[in-house]
């Protein structure tokens, strides 16, 4: 029941974020100092920001940025993490030891530092931030994937097919890999919510996506500094981030349980 609600929420969210900007009259970039920081009204349902830009259209196109970046960095971390954790199956024992060293070494480096260095290096931009956030999630993803793989490898089913003489490559691709997927998918939900959080945290520290980009993290950070004059500004992006994270977690959990 709850999952259905979460799933429905995500579907509606994605639809709204993709299609709503087409129907909106207000340009998310158009400034109008005359109506700076006006409260919600019929013309501007969520009010306007410091520069008189329409909060609703910024919120909706911000959804595109935020969700798009989350999908990008999650897939990046997911693909790399899964692939790397899978390699020892093909290359044998020494690569397992190597993987453990690389993995624990990377885990020990603070993710926030990795993201900071990457953004300083690449400059502030949507793709750069998505990359930096994804990069900092790779080590934990490898860790989870490897733990899952070990669990699967130890299962009776795999031991049985090994006993039956199946080649290790065959076991890897046809038996271990499919069985790793459920837990992996469940974990992806977590990576995705971390990605949303972390890019928002980078915006808070002033090194996230470029200024002026509509993005929930930036909107929330901006709203926070204007809390004393315009408390309504931060409510929608804040609630949207919370609901999205909850819904993503819930849906991916169920997905993991189903497969």
């Amino acid at each position, binding site marked *: 029941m709850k999952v259905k609600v979460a799933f429905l929420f995500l579907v509606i969210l994605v639809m709204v974020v993709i299609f709503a900007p087409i129907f909106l009259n207000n340009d998310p970039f158009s400034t109008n*100092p005359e109506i*700076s920081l006006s409260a919600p009204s019929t013309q501007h349902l969520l009010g306007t920001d410091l520069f008189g830009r329409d909060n609703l259209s910024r919120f909706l196109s911000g959804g595109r940025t935020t969700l798009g970046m989350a999908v990008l960095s999650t897939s990046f971390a997911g693909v790399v993490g899964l692939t790397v954790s899978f390699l020892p199956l093909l290359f044998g024992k020494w690569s397992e030891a190597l993987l453990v060293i690389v993995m624990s070494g990377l885990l020990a480096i603070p993710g926030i530092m990795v993201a900071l260095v990457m953004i300083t290096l690449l400059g502030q931009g949507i793709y750069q931030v998505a990359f930096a956030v994804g990069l900092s999630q790779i080590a934990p993803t490898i860790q989870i994937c490897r733990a899952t793989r070990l669990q699967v490898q130890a299962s009776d089913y795999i031991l049985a097919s090994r006993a039956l003489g199946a080649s290790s490559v065959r076991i890897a691709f046809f038996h271990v890999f499919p069985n790793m997927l459920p837990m992996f998918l469940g974990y992806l939900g977590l990576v995705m919510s971390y990605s949303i959080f972390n890019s928002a945290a980078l915006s808070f520290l002033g090194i996230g996506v470029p200024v002026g980009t509509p993005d929930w993290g930036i909107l929330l950070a901006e709203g926070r*500094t204007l809390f004393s004059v315009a408390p309504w500004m931060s409510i929608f992006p804040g609630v949207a981030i919370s609901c999205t994270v909850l819904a993503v977690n819930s849906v991916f959990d169920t997905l993991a349980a189903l497969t």
Partner: protein
Amino acid sequence: MIRKRIIISLWLIILVVLVGCSSENNDVQLNTIVYGLTLEPSGIDPHIYQSAELGIVLRSVYDTLVYRDPETLEIIPGLATSWVLSDDGLSYTFSLREGVTFHDGTPFNAQAVGANLDRIVDPETASQRAKFMLGPYVGYEVIDEYTIRIDLSQSYIPLLDAFSQVYLSIASPTAFNEYSRNRYQFFQVGTGPFRFVEYVPNDRIVIRRWEDYTWGPTFYDLPVDNSVEEIIFRFFDDEATRLLAIESGDVNVMGELPPTDARALGGNSQVQLLPVDVPGQPLQFMFNTQQFPTDNPIVRQALIIATNRNAIVDTVFQGFSSVAWGPLSEGSLFYNRQMVGVYEHNAQQARELLAAQGFVDGDGNGFLDAPNGDVEIVLIVPPWGRVPQVVQLLQDQWRDVGIRVQLDQVPNFNLLREAVDAGEYNLVSFDTPGIDPALLNDYFITSGVRNWMGYSNPELDAILQEAVVIADDSQRRLLYLEAQRLIMNNALILPIREYRNLNATDSTIEDLQFDAYGWFPILNNVRLTTSG
């Protein structure tokens, strides 16, 4: 076995909690205030570093040879009681005050001043600001115990202005010789009304009143019972907490409030807003005159005209600052009032100017066409001075006249320099505060270290170079008025707003004044309200 371990760990936890809870206590009851700064961990040695924040603290730890009267802006005696400029303008002779000692007991005399000068110009010191303020300094000669002569290679009138600034503070030679270049900043010793107690980067700076101080400049009051005796400076990087910290009583004074918060303060009777003008260059963008399309002066003029500075001041600065029209703010010496109103906002005129230069929107995509694609302006955006907010309005205002704006955000000065050196920009934001317009030389002389406009104009060079040599104020005025006119005629900069620091004090603070430079509080005169 297990139980034993658990008990031990429980004990450890309790121990940690107890140790942490034991709070530090002061034996003596001092009149203490907490002052909120925006300083992030960095160096605070005035001879080495250049931040304005370090001066907020150290202005009261050190004295300078001369002071600037906050009312009249005249140069008045400090550690030097009088001074004589030689007829050829090549040497200044300072007569020093007698009976002054540093906080560590070292006597103040001509040798001490000399040692300070040696330290400032020493290449090992790698001074970021102080060294350059000395201009064409070549050396000094100690005439007697209390007389020193400073020699220059050419006449340099702004030298007295330099000696009135915190960066040329006179520090105890005993102290800075005892510690290395980097360590001295933690053990600073001056002659000022407060002595330096400690600096913990990231956490606090503490200064305490020096009871034996009797040699202050005329505008320093004598201490009374409720004068402030101890000041703890704390750092607030996150601007959203600054207002909250003063409202919650965490700090008594807060500098650099965000303008929207200062606006919201109107209803709070407990907290007073204290806006202070900061003279010098306004918040400005420099045009790169070597890069298409800002190599065209008409395009530069069109961009200034396309900028609605009133809108920027009203929103980003909430009307607290005034619009800037030229390369100097109103509070600076020799400010050219005739610049007011030049290049007033007029989007239609900007469009016409651009069209007359052949920039039209042929493909109808809303942006003017360049030989390859659209006309695009690249802005280097540093994080300070609310530039990130200003550029969001600029972006939309210029879009209105068909100019596409590309933002190049840089997180620190280092990467700003990298971006400038790469040369792929049209505008970059940077400016310097100060009273004497000699600060323009770094920017607008061909060889200036901050000539990021890539601009060269022999006429302007000659004027600016002459203006630091001539002693006569009325002649200097004429030269600087002309320099300001030339700069704007050639549309070298886009001035945005005059600086105004928004400070706030709570009801415990009485008489917080700022010195002539606007940034630095006169902490000596601060008193606590006597209600309690």
